[in-house]
């Protein structure tokens, strides 16, 4: 899952990036409103953590611009101005949730997890596909109740596929959502990870749709 963090305070930006990466997300960062707006407008993020008070373009304006331009990714607002008027303004501008500063990182992670899940149509922290169980809260994968060891990249690939079960996911989409913007998109790394996952998972769970990409679970 690829997440954009737009926060102007360098330390907080770093902490958020670190915590999100530790939680298994691929994270791009921006430190001002215009840069954040540009990235959110051009890259396919699964979620955005957006500070309200930003230089060059405030968070609410960035969010409104995204929504106007048809960008529908879930957005979690970080706001120090935590009056209900500010929250309502944020929600009305198109935010999906908010976290008031100062916050504990667990709260941001929990809210973000819920947003990503909700955006993919899942209501629980645990996503299942046949015998495979993905615990988004604990970043664990179980097969028939037995823990499965995965590398960080394998986990991210499986997590994205399981969040979008039944949908055909192209290699490009996988690359876009599993790597940050500096990644070389022509490499065949995705095929390597899918191959490794297939070896660790029950047969036929990840299907190759010729010419289109991969599909996990039952077809739509």
């Amino acid at each position, binding site marked *: 899952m690829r997440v954009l963090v737009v926060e102007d*305070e360098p*330390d*907080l930006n770093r*902490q958020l990036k670190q*915590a999100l990466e530790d939680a298994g997300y691929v994270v791009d960062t921006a430190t001002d409103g215009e840069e954040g707006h540009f990235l959110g407008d051009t890259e396919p993020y699964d979620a955005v953590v957006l500070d309200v*008070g930003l230089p060059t373009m405030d968070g609410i304006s960035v969010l409104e611009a995204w929504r106007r331009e048809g960008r529908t990714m879930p957005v979690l607002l970080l706001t*120090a*101005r*935590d*009056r*209900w*008027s*500010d*929250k*309502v303004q944020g*929600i*009305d501008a198109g935010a*999906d*949730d*908010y976290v*008031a*500063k*100062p*916050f*504990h*990182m667990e*709260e941001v992670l929990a809210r973000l997890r*819920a947003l990503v899940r*909700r955006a993919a149509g899942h*209501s629980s922290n645990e996503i299942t596909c046949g015998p495979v169980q993905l615990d988004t809260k604990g970043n664990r994968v179980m097969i028939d109740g037995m823990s499965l060891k995965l590398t960080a990249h394998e986990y991210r690939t499986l997590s994205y596929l399981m969040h979008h079960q039944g949908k055909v996911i192209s290699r490009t989409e996988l690359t876009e959502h599993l790597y940050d913007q500096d990644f070389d998109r022509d490499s065949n790394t995705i095929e390597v990870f899918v191959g490794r996952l297939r070896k660790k998972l029950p047969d036929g769970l990840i299907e190759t749709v010729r010419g289109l990409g991969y599909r996990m679970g039952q077809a739509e």
Partner: protein
Amino acid sequence: MKLGNLPVPNSLALRLFLSSAALMAIGLIVSGFILTSLYSKSVRDAFDQQLEAYANALIGALSTQLSARGEAVSLSPPENIGEARFLEPLSGWYWQIGEGQDSVLFTSDSLIGSNLDFVEAESGIRPDNDHQGPGGESIRQLQRSYGLANGKNLVIAVTGNVTELNQSIADFRSNLMVTFFVFAAFLAMAIYLQIRLGLRPMERISRALRDVQAGRSQKIVGKFPSEILPVVDEINGLIVANKGVVERARTHVGNLAHALKTPLSVIANEADGADIKDKKISEQVTVARDQVNHYLSRARSAAGLVAVGTATPITPVVDSLVRAMEKIYQEKNLSISTKIDDITFRGEKQDLEEVAGNLIDNASKWSTSKVVVHAEKVSKVQWILTVEDDGPGMTAEQCKQALKRGKRLDETVAGSGLGLSIVVETANLYTGNMKLERSELGGLKAQLTLPCVA
């Protein structure tokens, strides 16, 4: 209010009316005296001229009896000089002719044997002016002296009855009083109308200010006379400046919040480890956060209270809050039903958002599936916001505890525990109150009383 020892009424209209009425009364009384004395003088002068004419007629009658050298050979009483009242006994109309002051030669028939007193002065009106005649009537006496060739003087005294004269003056005075009384009543009415008309712009200002104070209007609007317009402009300027000050205060408070809370987030997340030091830092960050939230909330609400003319229709506020809650808690698939009367909260929009937001947020957080928001007017100046949920609810003791600042009854649900106490404090600032009890839905029922625009 006192002016010297005189009590001065507080009403400007009454003050103007009383002072104008007093001046008018003094003016009319003085005018009455002047007019009466002028009239009196005028009628007395006319009376005196009449007496003078009679004296001249008597002289004329006697002069025909004088010799060519001006000597009185043998004088006889003059004939009737054309005034019947000189024949009527004790009519007050008399004449008397004497030779010198002491001897009386002739008298009018009306004196019927009595004599008039000649006065020392040779000519003119008797100094004691109106006095009693032989019949007890009030008379006015004119005396004239004419020198004869033999060195003696003919003294002629003519009197007239002044009862009619006095009656005429008294009639004039009473007629004048009636006229002045009617005139005074008319003037009083005119003064009243003038004051009402003149002070009408003041009443309009007063009404407009009450509207501003009550929140029905944002500034003083209307057409005002040029003399009052600068005052209206000044008041409107003050209202705008006041709102600006409050708005700037809110912005500064928001900036302060941002300036404090972002570093607090950094500190909290740097000290995210499990050792004692990290836990201590984390604990202190939480305390600092709660303190910042508490005092910022109070500062913002207090700033809002000084702004005059603040009024907020509650329906749009509750609607936007409900919309936000449904999005924030969409996973719970909440049903938030509202029944909001047409009420205008007498206060700042942000404060209403804060109290209603915290109550609806609490209810949404704890509810199983249902939240009911109800706003109704309970008196001309008060309304009640009721928020109920179908969550676990609280016992009476828990309700009491929940209203204490920063008290959190369940640490497993996100929040600072400040929500309800912020609601209570904000309600108190608006002289409202809050009540917590068990709801018929099974959960908590929060009732908040706040002021509204009448």
